[in-house]
């Protein structure tokens, strides 16, 4: 018997990364802007997405959404009311979405007719951070009821995100939410991150968010 060391040098999530790369190429070829929404459970992803999808539809924009959920299709039913194509991804206990799940659930959709694809990840601030879904923009939601120090407790997901949304701003006063502290904590773990304050109830901040989407989508089309 001989003992030997074999070099491997392979990414553990290599398979997911390859699928995500292929997916991104495919989505880019269609001129789609893809957004991966992450947050803790209950931060307001579905509510925010409902409002976003409605507004986009009113403006004649073509959007679709995939929504990951451990067990139910409640979120998908809520989102479908916005009148856009929506599909549920049952993760069967998985605490995050993977690129293959996204790819599987796009089947049959005319991607070339879409401008925006939203993916609501499973509510979890840990696991989704390692999985590339082929998105262009990763958006992390932090609601005012969760405390200002979430970014310090979960630096990995905040650092891997491109945009932060401070959600449920209509409740800020009741929660004595310290906006300055929250923003400082986001900047501490992800210097330069664009941060928007929104309320899906009152509509505060939605215009800025929609403008950001329009701008990112334009950049996407120009780079095609």
């Amino acid at each position, binding site marked *: *018997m*001989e*003992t*030997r*060391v*074999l*070099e*491997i*040098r*392979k*990414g*553990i*999530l*290599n*398979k997911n990364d390859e699928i995500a790369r292929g997916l991104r190429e495919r989505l880019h070829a269609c001129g789609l802007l893809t957004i991966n929404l992450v947050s803790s459970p209950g931060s307001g992803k579905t509510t925010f997405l409902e409002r976003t999808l409605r507004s986009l539809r009113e403006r004649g924009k073509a959007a679709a959404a995939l929504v990951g959920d451990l067990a139910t299709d409640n979120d998908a039913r809520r989102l479908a009311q916005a009148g856009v194509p929506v599909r549920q991804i049952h993760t069967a206990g*998985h*605490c*995050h979405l993977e690129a293959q799940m996204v790819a599987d659930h796009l089947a049959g959709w005319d991607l070339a007719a879409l401008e925006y694809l939203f993916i609501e990840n499973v509510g979890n601030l*840990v*696991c989704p*951070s*390692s999985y590339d879904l082929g998105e262009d923009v990763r958006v992390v939601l932090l609601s005012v009821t969760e405390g200002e120090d979430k970014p*310090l407790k979960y*630096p*990995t*997901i905040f*650092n*891997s995100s491109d945009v932060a949304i401070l959600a449920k701003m209509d409740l800020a006063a009741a929660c004595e939410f310290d906006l300055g502290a929250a923003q400082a904590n986001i*900047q*501490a*773990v*992800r*210097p*330069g*991150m664009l941060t928007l304050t929104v309320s899906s109830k009152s509509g505060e901040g939605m215009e800025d968010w929609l403008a950001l989407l329009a701008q990112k989508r334009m950049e996407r089309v120009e780079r095609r």
Partner: protein
Amino acid sequence: MHELSIAYSVVEIASESARQAGARRVNAVYLRLGALCGVARGALEFSYEIAAAGTLLEGSTLVIRELPARVYCPACQREGDLESVQHFLCPHCGAVTGDLRQGREMDVEAIEVDLPGAEPGTERREEPEREHGDAGTGDSQGNPEQER
């Protein structure tokens, strides 16, 4: 907890290489994990035993090398390791910088295997090779300065 599925991927990658090399057994698996890779070391170590059971890797040692988050500082034009991933500040001059150069890694670096040798009985153990300056797998218990 996604560490169990990560552990299964590690076992899959290692088993495939071991089988290709004709190995009978895997003694050790060497990983490197960046400080911002999103995997909790303890949970992975725990999951690894479960994932390795009944495979060529059963009973093998998981050797994890932790890589600190490293940033490039435009102010002093140098790279440096963050003292904490909660504060993206240049360790040399204290300037704010978000230019991450290392820290998301999550790789299988190497495996140590038993191959059916030509001369039975002459077992030889080798230390992992150090091919690249930063790729040493010998400092197995990770970087003591690493904060989690």
